[in-house]
């Protein structure tokens, strides 16, 4: 599986990979839920190539990040991961008919060459042309002016199989440059609840719902007690994350795994240490009661 992901990375093939996380390892708890594949999806496959990880928190967000993922995949010609979990994938909720804004949907094929573009091509088509953005115009096979071999080996612009050191530096740098612009397309973390609350719950993906309800209950008891910072974009790490996290007075990360993968990622990317965490890895989804009970225990 991960070798194919790497093939998409080096061959710059747009692909959207959907992972509804379940507890493992191996078969684990195959009908239950967890959020323990974040760092796996971040590193899956050998070597390095740009990727994006999107983790929708709600059904509405799943709808919008779904089509966004396909657009981003074609814009950057690289694997895009949508990270869901069993809880979100199997969740039922009634939505109003107009809750999903179909008019907002856009289809962006990125730098895709048309037959008309290829008709006027006078030089040999270079599938992996070195460009400033790192994105090379992509043809689809079938036009007489664009005949080439998609390569899993390192290759030059044409592409020929090429092991020359300078070429490797140029092609790897070209691919990795795509990550710079990708930061503009990763959704920033979003706030819920009153500004400047005493406690900030930090979460990602499907934990949004129960964390939001926990925040509501805390604020019903004491106004301004809590708010929520939710991450639905995790790679590239959103550029606004540090500013937002530093606005919080006390941060507690709520996530469904043993080691604290979002907590690890926050520390790795921006050197920010959270104040506490609530983790769950028993295969059951978070509930507001679970979060509130753990908060009480930690205060006691």
């Amino acid at each position, binding site marked *: 599986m991960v070798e194919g992901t790497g093939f998409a990375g080096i061959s710059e093939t747009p692909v959207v990979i959907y992972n509804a996380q379940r507890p493992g390892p191996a078969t684990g708890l195959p009908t239950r839920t967890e959020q323990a594949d974040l760092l796996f999806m971040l590193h899956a496959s050998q070597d390095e190539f740009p990727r994006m990880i999107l983790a929708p928190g709600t059904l509405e967000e799943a709808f919008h990040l779904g089509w966004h993922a396909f657009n981003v995949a074609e814009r950057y010609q690289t694997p895009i991961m949508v990270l869901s979990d069993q809880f979100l994938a199997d969740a039922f909720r009634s939505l109003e008919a107009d809750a999903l804004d179909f008019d907002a949907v856009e289809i962006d094929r990125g730098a895709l060459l048309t037959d008309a573009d290829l008709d006027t091509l006078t030089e040999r088509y270079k599938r992996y042309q070195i460009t400033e953005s790192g994105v090379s115009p992509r043809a689809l*096979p079938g036009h007489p002016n664009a005949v080439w*071999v998609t390569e899993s080996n390192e290759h030059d612009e044409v592409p020929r199989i090429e092991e020359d050191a300078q070429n490797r530096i140029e092609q790897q740098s070209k691919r990795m440059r795509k990550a710079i612009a990708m930061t503009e397309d990763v959704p920033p973390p979003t706030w819920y609840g009153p500004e400047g609350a005493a406690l900030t719950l930090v979460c990602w993906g499907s934990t949004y719902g129960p964390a939001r309800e926990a925040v509501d209950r805390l604020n019903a008891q004491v106004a301004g007690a809590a708010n929520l910072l939710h991450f639905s974009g995790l790679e590239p790490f959103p550029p606004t994350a540090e500013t937002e996290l530093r606005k919080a007075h006390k941060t507690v990360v709520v996530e469904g795994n043993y080691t604290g993968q979002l907590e690890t990622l926050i520390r790795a990317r921006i050197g920010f240490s959270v104040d506490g965490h609530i983790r769950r890895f028993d295969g059951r989804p978070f509930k507001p009661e679970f979060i509130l009970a753990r908060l009480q225990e930690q205060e006691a």
Partner: protein
Amino acid sequence: MVTRDDYRIDEKPTWCPGCGDYGILNALTRALVEHAIAPHELMIVTGIGCGSKLPQYMRVNGMHTLHGRPWPAAQGAKLANHGMRVMIIHGDGDGYGEGLGHFVHAVRRNPGVTEIVQNNKIYGLTKGQFSPTSEKGWKTSTSPHGSAEDPAQPLALAITHGATFVARGYPGELKHLIWLIGEALEHPGYALVDILQPCVSFNKPRTYDYYAERVYRLEDETGYNPANRTAAWERAQEWGERIPIGIFYRAIPGPTFEMLDPVLKEGAPLVKRPLEKLNSAQVESLLAKLR
């Protein structure tokens, strides 16, 4: 008109002098020219191995994938653009080793894909380990006491799983091989051409001389009828003093996998259809199903 120059490219193969892959490349190019198939109309999907580098040595559309994994890419290519000719070309280690599961499932789907296997009965790129088609008892670097495994029977396997064109060629019989590849390309369904490929560097037992003394053409056998599936299955397992080449089995195939797909069987190939957002009527009909 398609000529051999259309397929020519200035690239020197990494193959050893005398490798059977040169003959296979030559026969393939000639067959493509004879059947008037232009490079842009063809997609050659390969795995990993010496022979899988073949599309780099001709001017053609190709996809050089992963070891044992050309089948998923080739089936995807055929579904995305069933108007394009798709071939799979790979070695026995790739196709019958790591790729054996893909092979069996692909065969029973009958995709409109032509498969060529450069079968040298050894892992040549990695310098001589026993492969799925190595014979029992062969001593190699990874079987110093002799391989303990019976060889895979890919031709019989293909016949068993419903393939309707199953053939074996030999680059020492070049004209015959060109004819075989051409027949496979004209077959309106999945077609397999397994090729006895001498590996002069790492398979010393199976040389050109060895094969030259043993191969015989099924077409020359009186009474052999390639429409007889049982006879084909038996003949596919003949190996030793006499080694058959030619068409083992040929039948009229049913509809291809892609033509059984309700979306694909009418209209242009997927890749030629515009990708547009749903209009309001389509959105409304989707939502109606949820109410």
